[in-house]
């Protein structure tokens, strides 16, 4: 497979996964903005997807409608859904002859849906949750179609590596941003709404309820999001998946390159596997997350170097 084609598969997936994360995050946060008018702030969401930017926050003024517009349809925000999907589509276009027609059409439809004027209008004056649901459904359609139609070959492996790498990074960013304020505001530790929103925004609330009977506790939330093997958005689940799909790329002609990256992934995998909430606290959550994220970036860079020919 051409290196550029592999890179396009990988990036296509990263963008789709990112759009999924953003949409879910927006949906839950909008809902919570309706719950607790006083304490609610969009700042963490903006920080995750646009970095710390005081000027931007001021401009948006914690106005939900303004934030939604910025995050979904704003052409000047390079991480807006519109721009992300445009990039995803361009990657798909350049590998059009390598992906099933159904998948291309699915993505095309997603793109055209985002561009429809009624999306922007809806976010401005109708029920934003309804609008976000329309878009979330597009992502789910895409994932379903990919699952059903994609040939089980190299292309799909690169797609899935991209997807889970992006997912792991997102989960880490969310944790980092949400646990950051704890140092200054220990009251949050016992704020049930705070943890509930965090779990809901990455779809882990129901699993949490089933796993931990004793109500919401910061320690348990941490354990679920980093270390739970069955939670599809946990860091360990994502890294396991990266390992699984990378394993399928092994063949005779690139043994050395393969080994190098395989080593990276394996080392990260075991370092997470043999962590516990306690050991993480000892290292310091922020330091721990930064380290895992660095490793993930390194894997991305190594893929770029060995498989994507720096394209």
């Amino acid at each position, binding site marked *: 497979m051409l290196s550029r084609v592999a890179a396009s598969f990988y990036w296509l997936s990263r963008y789709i996964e990112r759009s999924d994360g953003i949409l879910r995050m927006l949906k839950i946060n909008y809902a919570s903005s309706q719950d607790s008018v006083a304490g609610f702030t969009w700042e963490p969401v903006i920080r995750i997807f646009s970095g710390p930017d005081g000027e931007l926050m001021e401009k948006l003024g914690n106005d939900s409608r303004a934030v939604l517009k910025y995050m979904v349809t704003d052409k000047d925000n390079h991480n807006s859904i519109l721009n992300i999907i445009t990039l995803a589509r361009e990657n798909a276009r*350049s590998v059009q*002859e390598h992906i099933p027609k159904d998948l291309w059409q699915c993505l095309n439809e997603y793109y055209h849906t985002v561009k429809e004027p009624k999306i922007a209008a809806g976010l401005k004056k109708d029920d934003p949750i309804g609008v976000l649901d329309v878009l979330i459904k597009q992502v789910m359609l895409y994932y379903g179609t990919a699952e059903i139609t994609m040939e089980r070959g190299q292309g799909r492996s690169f797609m899935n590596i991209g997807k889970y790498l992006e997912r792991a990074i997102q989960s880490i960013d969310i944790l980092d941003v949400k646990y950051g304020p704890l140092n200054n505001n220990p009251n949050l530790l016992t704020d049930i709404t705070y943890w509930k929103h965090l779990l809901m925004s990455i779809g882990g609330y129901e699993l949490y309820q089933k796993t931990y009977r004793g109500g919401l506790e910061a320690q348990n939330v941490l354990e679920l999001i980093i270390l739970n093997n069955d939670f599809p958005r946990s860091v360990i689940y994502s890294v396991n998946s990266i390992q699984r799909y990378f394993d399928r790329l092994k063949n005779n*002609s690139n043994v050395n390159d393969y080994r190098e990256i395989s080593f990276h992934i394996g080392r990260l995998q075991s370092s997470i596997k043999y962590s516990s909430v306690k050991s993480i606290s000892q290292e310091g959550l922020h330091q721990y997350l930064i380290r895992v994220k660095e490793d993930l970036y390194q894997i991305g860079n190594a893929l770029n170097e060995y498989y994507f020919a720096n394209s």
Partner: protein
Amino acid sequence: MYQSQHFEKYNLINGVWDEMYSENSIVRHHYKKVIEYLAQESPDDLGKKEELAKNLFMTQGITFTVYNSGEGIEKIFPFDIIPRVITSDEWCIIEKGIKQRLTALNLFLKDIYHNQFIVKDGIVPIDIIYSCPHFLREMYQLNVPYDIYVHIAGIDLIRDHDGTFYVLEDNLRTPSGVSYMLENREITKRLFPDLLPNCGVRSVTEYPSILYKNLLSLSPRQISNPTIVLLSPGIYNSAYFEHTTLARLMGVELVEGRDLVVNNHKVYMKTTTGLQQVDVIYRRVDDEFLDPLVFNPNSVLGVAGLMGAYRKGNVAIVNAVGNGVADDKATYIYVPDMIKYYLNEEPLLKNVPTHRLSNKDERDHVFKNINTMVVKKTNESGGYGMLMGHAATEEEIEKYKLEILKDPRNFIAQPTISLSAAPCYIGGALQPRRIDLRPYALCGPDGIEIVPGGLTRVALKEGSLVVNSSQGGGSKDTWVLA
């Protein structure tokens, strides 16, 4: 006039050859079956067919993207559902004529980049060659496989008022549109079930396999499975759809310049399992962008060092580099002389009379009669930079004249040729519109092959003579009868 509701509005254009009707309004024999078929359909049926065609193009993604202010708008190349029919006698002339022309043009390119006999013998003026920006000194003494320079040619033909075919333009660099020849046929099969076999229409589907066979034969490495790639500028190119179609139909890899690298005068493509040597490149990137080391240093579409690999014979490039010197509109004038010079034959297809504006007498003549002339830039194609004398305003003409005087070498003029008309389904009825024809010729070691068909382009605007897609033109399926 044929008695059918579709033809009520069909008014023959004075002094123009009509493909369907003879002068006394009798349907020409080769259009009879088509007309009979159409007569059974209600205008409503035809409308539905038109709608169906549009949907098929859209859903199959047979589109090109027009970029306006950064926004990409996907469009379909307008398609007229009524096929254009060519008799086997007409095709015979076209086929022989193009083969003859292409044989001469290939010999000319080989000659001009080696001994230059034709220049030394004074047949083609040397200043035409040496002032042509597409005459590439980098190609001098460079040998190409089988001395074939033009592997793929799109020769534009038009018909004058008496039905005679003329060559309007030779496209010998990276002619496009062949995917529309193929797709138009696929769609016509759906629109008019059973009509094609009933009429005895010859098939065009062989095109990709002939091209593939020719590409394969050019491989410098004598191995069973050489690597052939189609080099595309990328997804923003308006012909990107065509590039993907051809790559898919031939089963070759579609690459961009950044996928390729030259190492020790061999070309490789970068794959997830390392470098893989490339043997043949069917490129759809212009010469100037092909190798930033030798040509335009700012090009991001090409491969640095490619010309070195080409010179060493380690890679074949299709079409050859430097062909622009042969399809330059100033060189065009001398193609009939080339045929006589190299082949000792009379040209079978005529040239449109053409004036060189660098020649003062000819320029004066053209300026005096500008209302009956079409003036073109010698190295532009696609209908850009043209002046249609009969339709231009006084002011436009004066402005254009000034431009000509700045660099007369870059302009030629031709008398306005009427272009034949064919029936098109427009506004719920059949109406005559002006058309041309671009057949695609493939030249390989075994000779020249032309699939019976081509791209018929049509000027959809009433009264217009410009068929280029960039100027509001569309296309039709082209039927060559057995």
